[in-house]
């Protein structure tokens, strides 16, 4: 077994405790190692957003809102709309979050959610074109972490997908004068895939999913794995220092498929998302 960076005494004591529980198939909060915390999804809380979702996964609470604007497409993709993901780790969520522009954790979160949505193929960007080469919809997907009890990755993607799936985007149309104007109508984004991720933590040779904060603080290492409903891995992010033994990769992949599928089912049911 590979070396892991040495931990301070208090971390080692807690790690030992959690490791011994894991050996018995148990965890601090009574979950099984492969059990995710209870998930609650509420959509439409913010009426002024074009889509919104408040997701709690255990004690971690995420609010995502969507705003659509009209802008110009990227020159190399004239027929496609675009989207941008931002994430703010609000200081009211944790003593470890500071006010101010996103630090590396917020940026990483936004980029992992972005890649999971993008490579997961959740949106048909060509449907977001108004006039090719000139006007397209731009979706701003903004993630706010409201309460942080470990693992903000998985609930953030759940909230982003739920907000997108239930969004009602104001329709813009080309008027007689060639100008693009907002109409009273709104349309739904029809998601073309439902990506989900699972965060997997490792202590020695044992795995656990969806770490709660006390666990997160003492893991040897962790990673986030995303899949789509067609059986593809669509994103991976090793998101902490530490060594992942190569020999564990097959068990990790296996577990990731199982748990992302489970979260996908929950998401589809709770948010009433039509299957793509």
């Amino acid at each position: 077994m590979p070396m892991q960076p040495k931990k301070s005494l208090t971390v080692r004591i807690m790690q030992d405790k959690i490791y011994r529980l894991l050996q018995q198939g148990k965890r601090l909060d009574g979950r099984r190692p492969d059990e995710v915390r209870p998930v609650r999804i509420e959509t439409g809380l913010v009426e002024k957003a074009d889509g919104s979702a408040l997701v709690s996964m255990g004690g971690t609470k995420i609010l995502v809102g969507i705003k659509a604007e009209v802008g110009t497409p990227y020159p190399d993709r004239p027929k496609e709309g675009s989207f941008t993901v931002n994430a703010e780790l609000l200081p009211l969520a944790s003593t470890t979050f500071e006010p101010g522009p996103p630090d590396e954790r917020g940026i990483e979160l936004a980029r992992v959610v972005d890649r999971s949505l993008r490579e997961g193929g959740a949106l048909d960007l060509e449907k977001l074109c108004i006039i090719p080469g000139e006007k397209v919809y731009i979706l701003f997907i903004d993630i706010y972490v409201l309460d942080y009890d470990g693992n903000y990755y998985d609930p953030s993607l759940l909230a982003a997908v739920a907000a997108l799936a239930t969004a009602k985007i104001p329709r813009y149309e080309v008027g007689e004068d060639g100008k693009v104007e907002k109409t009273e109508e709104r349309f739904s984004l029809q998601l073309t895939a439902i990506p989900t991720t699972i965060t997997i933590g490792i202590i020695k040779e044992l795995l656990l999913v969806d770490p709660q904060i006390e666990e997160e603080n003492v893991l040897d290492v962790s990673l986030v794995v995303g899949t789509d409903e067609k059986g593809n891995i669509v994103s991976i992010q090793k998101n902490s220092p530490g060594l992942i033994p190569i020999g564990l990769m097959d068990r990790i992949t296996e577990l990731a498929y199982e748990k992302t599928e489970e979260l996908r089912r929950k998401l589809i049911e709770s948010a009433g998302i039509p299957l793509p």
Partner: protein
Amino acid sequence: MEKPKLISEDGVRVDGRRLDELRPIKMEVGVLDKSDGSAYVEFGKTKVFAAVFGPREVHPKHLALPERAILNCRYHMTSFSVEDRKPLGMTRREVELSKVIREALESIVFLEEFPRTSIDIYVEVIQADGGTRTTGLTAASLALADAGIPMADMIAAVAVGKVEGHLVLDVCDIEDKYGEADLPVAMAPRLNSIVLLQLNGRLSREEFQKAMALAREGISKIYQMQREALKRKYSSVEEG
């Protein structure tokens, strides 16, 4: 955009309220786990979280004061809380409102009981439909109480507006936008004192006096709701 008709001839407002009627108000205490105290407050579609951390050690240390606690406050809105997406980062408006909310709270918190510490208050507006500073202050006051921070009084707050010549209680966004004046007021009712007062608009001397009286009436109702919200939280804890 054409200004819509905001008050009917028989004194009914655009959302069906009477002139001196508050919006439906929802208050919940202790909604966020990781802070020392928190609250969620809705005034109609205005929806605000507040959380309190502290008293805790000051970072960096040299900012600490030997004779009292520092009180920090950040009023912030999510990007999607308003009609047109708010850019990320703090706007000048958010900086100003953070200051006036903080100064209101400094008026009633017993800061000298916690020298060399800081008390940090975060107000997060997740939807803005008028009266966000007063709703935020109402929530912050509940969060402070939830955190067990000793205060000389609770703060309750509301905005009075002047719309089509009428003074109205608890302005909503469209009334604020097309109205003639917006007067946010916060009081410490037990101390018979004003802790926040701003005016954006034009009022005659008489209107100002009436508006202050109207605010005071609203505030005493809100104050009552705050006490009930706290009782709900703590009685349920005792029961639980």
